[in-house]
């Protein structure tokens, strides 16, 4: 057989194999994409547990419907579409939950959301700076929650995961132009919400 000319051809072969029921091929495909998927889910949900749920659902869905994949887009786009849709569902559910979210008061008398979870892998030698950083992170998290699910998704994909706006459009089944406008709106809202941050 001819040697593989590019990663794209590798994917194609693996996809074809997976479509014929080759589970090992599917698992190989998973390994190429799963860290990116996990990264996205983790940052978006803020929880390892929920990220894992999204991961599981996404790849099971992919496995069950890979027979319908017709190569009309790249496998990369297809996978991102599945994950993004699951993330959108998650965000919508969260919005509904927020209305009766349990709220508690901390030592300073400030109200905070018990459901708030911000991943914080960095513990440095400077606890004060860490605290400040965590505070900032929390505020950003709060501000992000003010966006609509779609705005949040576009912003997340563009800003935090570096996808090109064109890809973001493809993933969300819309145009690059719409993705662009959504990004503008999201940025404006965020700037408003975080205006008092130096």
């Amino acid at each position, binding site marked *: *057989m*001819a*040697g593989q*000319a590019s990663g794209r*051809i590798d994917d*194609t*072969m693996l996809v*074809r194999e997976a*479509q*014929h*029921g080759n*589970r090992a091929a*599917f*698992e190989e495909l*998973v*390994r190429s994409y*799963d*860290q990116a998927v*996990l*990264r996205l889910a*983790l*940052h978006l949900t803020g929880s*390892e547990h929920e*990220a*894992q749920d999204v*991961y*599981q659902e996404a*790849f*099971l869905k992919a*496995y*069950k419907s890979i027979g319908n994949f*017709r*190569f009309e887009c790249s496998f990369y786009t297809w996978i991102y579409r599945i994950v993004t849709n699951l993330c959108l569902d998650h965000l919508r559910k969260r919005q509904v939950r927020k209305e009766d979210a349990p709220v508690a008061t901390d030592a300073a008398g400030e109200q905070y959301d018990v459901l708030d979870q*911000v*991943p914080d*892998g*960095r513990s440095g030698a400077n606890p004060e700076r860490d605290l400040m*950083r965590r505070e*900032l*992170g929390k505020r*950003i*998290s709060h501000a*992000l929650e003010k966006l609509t699910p779609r705005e949040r998704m576009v912003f997340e994909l*563009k*800003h*935090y*995961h570096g996808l*090109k*706006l064109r890809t973001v459009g493809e993933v969300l089944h819309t145009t690059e132009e719409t993705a*662009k406008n959504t*990004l*503008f709106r999201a*940025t404006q809202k*965020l*700037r408003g919400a*975080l205006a008092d*941050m130096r």
Partner: protein
Amino acid sequence: MKCEWVKENVLLYVYNELPDDARYELEQHLARCADCTAELKTTRKFHTMLSELPVEEPSPNLVAASRMRLQEGLETAEQGRFWHRLIFDPAAWLRQVRFAPALAAAIFIVGFAGGIATTYKVVSDRGASIASVPVSTPAESSITGIQSISQDPGSNHISIKYNTVSTQEAQGSLNDQRIQQLLLFAARNNYNSGVRMDSVDLLTQEPNNTHVREALMYALRYDSNPGVRLKALDSLGPFVKSDPRVRDVVLEALIQDSNPGVRTDALRLLDPVRADSSVRTVLQELARSDQNQYIRSQARIMLSQLPEFD
């Protein structure tokens, strides 16, 4: 005026989303405009500040745990798929489902199909002979899929829901839309390669129709029978030049079809487009390292006929 445009586009600039000419213009303007430069600075600062919610790399533990959980999930999913493949033949279905002798007492099978309720009851007593109560004749109805299988906990009672459909016949000419639809369906979905062959054969008479062409491309890509693939390939051949999708599918077949006959045919059919860059790249690769000697030499010949490019 220009400042307005710049301020609208500075965000895209920061995200590196501006096309080259717009980016150049913007940078030129910034060199002369303090106002806009300040705007850029603010935007950049905001952009950086958002990274205070950093994107964490998933820990190796999390990745490993997720993968393991997925594997379990895939195994379960696979078992579900098995049932879906059992179509059309009730006898074959019964043969494939192995009944352990211990799994004896009673099996109730209840079927639903738009008004046709079929009940097939198999009763067995501790491994004694199975007495069957036949219902509607298999000739008139065929099982299209198993909907669900459940076992009452703590007992040997199993209930299986399956769907049936009755066989019908359609007649008409190749121009009939109904006939075309059925042919397209048959080309993709029939488990019998003879039927697929027949349908692809008829479809090759109409390759100008978009749906037909798609069905032929599908057959070339996915059909398990090389004869069917060859037939589809030959029919698509004349369109490699006019339709880039066809060219790509044929190229794919050349690269990875398991059947050398299909590959050789694909190579021959790509001759009119051998100057295309993607085709040329593949030809170069084949000429260098393909296992098949004929394909290697043919690829070399085709390349030698190309004018020299830099």
